[in-house]
């Protein structure tokens, strides 16, 4: 529930550089070259390491774990670090679904026969 905050807050507490919403990343000469999409363009950041980088889906294709990997993970020791939780400033109350904005659906027909009605709709909407 803390969208946009975890990466930048962790970076600030660690006094580390940070780049968010990254969709392309490579390490070159000990620096992270991170790119964020902005419209049709790419904003390019060049960060010394260590750095905090938050990424978006599409930056890579996730590997599926192998069966061997899954079995090995079962035996891996898990270290637990006790933490003192600060009092939260935001108290969660409820989650709700967005109201379905039921469109006033006009069916224009089926298949190719609907094309004239589709053209009329595009004209009415100012596209044509």
């Amino acid at each position, binding site marked *: 529930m803390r969208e946009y905050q975890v990466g*930048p807050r962790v970076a600030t507490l660690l006094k580390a550089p940070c780049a968010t919403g990254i969709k392309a990343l490579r390490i070159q000469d000990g620096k992270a070259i991170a790119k964020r999409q902005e*419209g049709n363009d790419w904003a390019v950041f060049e960060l010394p390491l260590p750095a905090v980088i938050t990424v978006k889906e599409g930056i890579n294709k996730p590997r599926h774990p192998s069966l061997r990997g899954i079995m090995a993970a079962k035996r891996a020791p898990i270290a637990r670090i006790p933490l003192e939780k600060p009092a939260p400033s935001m*108290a969660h109350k409820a*989650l709700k679904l967005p109201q379905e904005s039921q469109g006033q659906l006009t069916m224009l027909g089926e298949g190719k026969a609907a094309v004239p009605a589709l053209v009329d709709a595009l004209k009415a*909407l100012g596209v044509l």
Partner: protein
Amino acid sequence: MQLVYIELKAGKPTEGSLSALCAARQLAGPIHALTLGPIEAASLAPYGVEKVWVVDDERLRPFAPTAAAKAVHQAIQRLAPRWVVAPSSPEANEVLARAAALGGWGFASACTQLAVDGDALNLTRVTWGGSLFQEAQLKGTPALISVDLAAFSPQPSAAPGATTLENLSVTLSDGDFVDQLKAVEKGEKQGVSLADAKVVVGGGRGVGSEEGFNMLVELAGLLNAAVGGSRVVTNNGWRPHSDQIGQTGAQIAPDVYIACGISGAIQHMVGCKNSKNIIAINKDPDAPIFQRANYGVVGDLHEIIPALMDEVKKLKGK
């Protein structure tokens, strides 16, 4: 007093910043604005701004998140506002989250509704990429919030302020510019971006292949539209990832969205929910997209789109 963080684009406040000013009017107290660059008072006066605090340090351009956060943190400490309000843009959220971390303050992003309740703020905010709303209560002073651009449309105030400007100096070291924007590279795509397009032609699983998109690209050319796709399309490599519309891709807000062969999964719909009109073409009459669409055609897009293009070409040929 409330402090509204104004983002600038070519010296002018962004649309989202004006939304933030309108949201601030729902909270109590005089409205002050904060900019990290020069601005004309006249651009904010219609929105009831009493005073604009200007941090005019050239090093803050282009975007430098660590330095911007330190500047905002120092401004908040100096001015001691009750509320800090910002547009919920990626950059403003990053700056506020970092300023909040520096000050140990609370921050709620992407708010859609605000109501002061004693010494707390009851709020509703967008979460899970737009597929859910969270109701929460934010406590503490100052409390930082960013507001969802779609929820507050920029309306001039009934009581415009006699806006004055005042410079605010902050202390920044060279090390604060470590993560400054280095460059802006032009993308492969030219023309109007998905986010700004007035007409968008989108394709989904029903398009079937990379080649299948050729006709959608052609249709988009005829309609002066941008082309986008659902997640399955970009995951299959039929279109580049930058074309993805949805929760983890582009959020579009065109006048007309023509959705071809898209079933209408929630993850896709949150990316196109701000479309003014949706025309859905799908061969499954029970596809969820029809529940959100304004116009629907049931049928195979591989027959309908070429026939539509023939008609459009005839019209254009006149």
